[in-house]
């Protein structure tokens, strides 16, 4: 079993599990919304089930796969051993099973497996993240610790019979911060490759444009600070008007990060454009949340879904494509399905965000959003599953980039 290609590198099982669990969760959710079936009984209620499974199931598995693969590279430490990442993957699967069956099993088993996974991931990576004084990854360390803390808080609320949704909103905020941190790392490569791919002779209008993309730490840090500040105040005072201004500040700080991205024509290639769209969705999501807090008649769920579908799902897709292929010994995928999936996710985000506005047909928008999301990630699974399940084409034996 350990010699199967799926065990070659940490991201392989996690990315596969992420796609499969996301598709099952959303398929069940869409069917439930359309009245086709009822969902399994869980202790937390159906909306919490939906949000929890997409956050701690779909997104968390992608994050774990990415971080377990990328951290050894970022920190110049050895690759994560197979037993470790497979153990974590098993814990993650148990987390899904116990959560789905929590109506019968109770809260304790699901609390142990889910908290165990988040905490285990952080504790395992913690020494690596901080071992090299020149390459300390404080932000990643705090992000993972934050997700573990949110998982602990979520289950402590459940155990005390409290409604735990606030922890899931905090989880979305923490993920947004992690996306800002992660995207800047990935962008250093993909945007600069796009710049290098351009013809060398610049025309007159390009003379003022930068020669390379540089992620400016102060801009990135400001965005992380504003997002976390809004997340914290929303957690403490969910109804306070101050959240409105802080959400708008978070949106402005995300737009501010895009100053780094305005590198001219290189931006208009598929991979940079995907992350650029992620930032736009994040910013617009925070604007919607901000205006809602300030009293405009807008559903808050529109804002949360712009963040979660536009921000999280699109960045998960980008990470799966970029990290998944390059660490499997493949070049980046230049086929058209990538653009198709990007468009489908964008449609899913916009149609879900429009649900609840004015008199637009709610159920139809849910159906469009859910089915385009399912189509997008089914296509992704179709094209990426062989990459994760088959040996590397270059004969490599681990996570290294194409040989």
């Amino acid at each position, binding site marked *: 079993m350990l010699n199967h290609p799926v065990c070659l590198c940490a991201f392989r099982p996690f990315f596969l599990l992420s796609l499969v669990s996301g598709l099952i969760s959303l398929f069940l959710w869409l069917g439930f919304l359309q009245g086709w079936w009822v969902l399994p009984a869980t202790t937390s209620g159906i909306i919490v089930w939906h949000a929890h499974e997409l956050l701690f199931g779909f997104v968390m598995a992608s994050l774990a796969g990415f971080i377990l693969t990328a951290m050894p590279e970022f920190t110049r430490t050895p690759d994560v051993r197979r037993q470790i990442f497979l153990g974590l993957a098993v814990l993650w699967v148990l987390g899904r099973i116990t959560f789905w069956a929590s109506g019968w099993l109770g809260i304790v088993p699901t609390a142990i497996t889910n908290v165990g996974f988040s905490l285990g991931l952080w504790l395992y990576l913690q020494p690596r993240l901080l071992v090299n004084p020149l390459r300390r990854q404080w932000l990643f360390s705090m992000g993972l610790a934050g997700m573990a803390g949110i998982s602990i808080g979520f289950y402590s609320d459940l155990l005390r019979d409290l409604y735990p949704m606030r922890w899931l909103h905090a989880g979305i905020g923490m993920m947004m911060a992690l996306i800002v941190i992660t995207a800047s790392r990935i962008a250093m490569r993909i945007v600069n490759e796009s710049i290098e791919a351009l013809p060398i002779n610049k025309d007159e209008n390009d003379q003022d444009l930068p020669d390379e993309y540089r992620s400016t730490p102060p801009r990135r840090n400001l965005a992380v600070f504003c997002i976390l500040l809004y997340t914290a105040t929303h957690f403490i005072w969910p109804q306070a008007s101050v959240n409105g201004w*802080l959400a708008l500040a978070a949106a402005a700080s995300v*737009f501010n990060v895009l100053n780094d991205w305005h590198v001219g024509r290189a931006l208009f290639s598929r991979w940079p454009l995907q992350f650029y769209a992620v930032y736009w969705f994040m910013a617009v999501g925070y604007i919607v949340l901000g205006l809602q807090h300030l009293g405009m008649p807008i559903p808050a769920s529109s804002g949360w879904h712009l963040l979660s579908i536009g921000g999280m799902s699109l960045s998960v897709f980008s990470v799966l494509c970029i990290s998944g292929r390059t660490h499997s010994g493949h070049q980046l995928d230049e086929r058209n399905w990538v653009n198709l999936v990007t468009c489908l996710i964008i449609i899913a985000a916009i149609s879900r965000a429009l649900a609840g506005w004015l008199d637009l047909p709610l159920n139809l928008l849910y159906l469009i959003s859910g089915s385009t999301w399912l189509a997008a990630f089914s296509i992704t699974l179709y094209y990426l599953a062989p990459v994760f399940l088959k040996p590397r084409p270059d004969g490599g034996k681990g996570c290294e980039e194409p040989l």
Partner: protein
Amino acid sequence: MHLLRSTLRELPSYLWSGWGAICSLLLLMAAWQLVSELYGSLVLAQPLEAFASFKHLWNNQTLPEALIITGRRALSGLLLALGLGTGLGLLAGVSVTAAMMSRPLVTVLLGMPPIAWLVLAMLWFGASDGTPIFTVFVATFPMVFIGALQGARTVDNQLNEMAQTLQLPKRMMLFDVYLPHVFSYLFPAWVAALGMSWKIVVMAELLANQDGVGASLAVARSHLDSAASMAWIVAIVLLLLGIEYLFLEPIKRQVERWRVTEA
């Protein structure tokens, strides 16, 4: 023309770079909201109440009219100070004796608090336009004067001698040797004077006049109308931010770039 073209080309990226400033201002709004919720609307109106009052004042023309009156007074005093301060400062800078003689006077003028000038102006001009215009002039004049004086005093002598040795035409001497140098001292002084003039005119109006932004602010205060007071303050700050970021900053960037290129 080239300057205009390059400014226009950079405009989108310049405007986009404003998101950082907008973010800071929104954080300030959050702090404002927190304080107003803590102490109540009578002490500090909430931001949205202030904006509603702003909209109301704008719609019934009170605000634009007051801004025009205040702007006219501030600009009159400022233009007077810019003209006289620049001219006299340059003259003083050309002669060492004049520079030596004028320095203590400028120190006295700079050290004199604007409120003291305001008291004198009220005695001399009463509640007329003269009071704010004079106060703005007298408070900003020394800043411009000292900028022009320093600009004229610090022209590089070696550069001057070289230009004379090469027998540069007078026009070239003026535009390529003297003006660029003097301008690099003058411009920051003008910018500082502009910011100062706006604050001083509001203060002068608050104490001396029946119309304008300052007077309206005094009326709002006397009615204990916290929302209207904040609306007037927002109007003042917005105008100041607009002038600073949409007008002065782009010019400043061009000037700085030119200085770097020159160096």
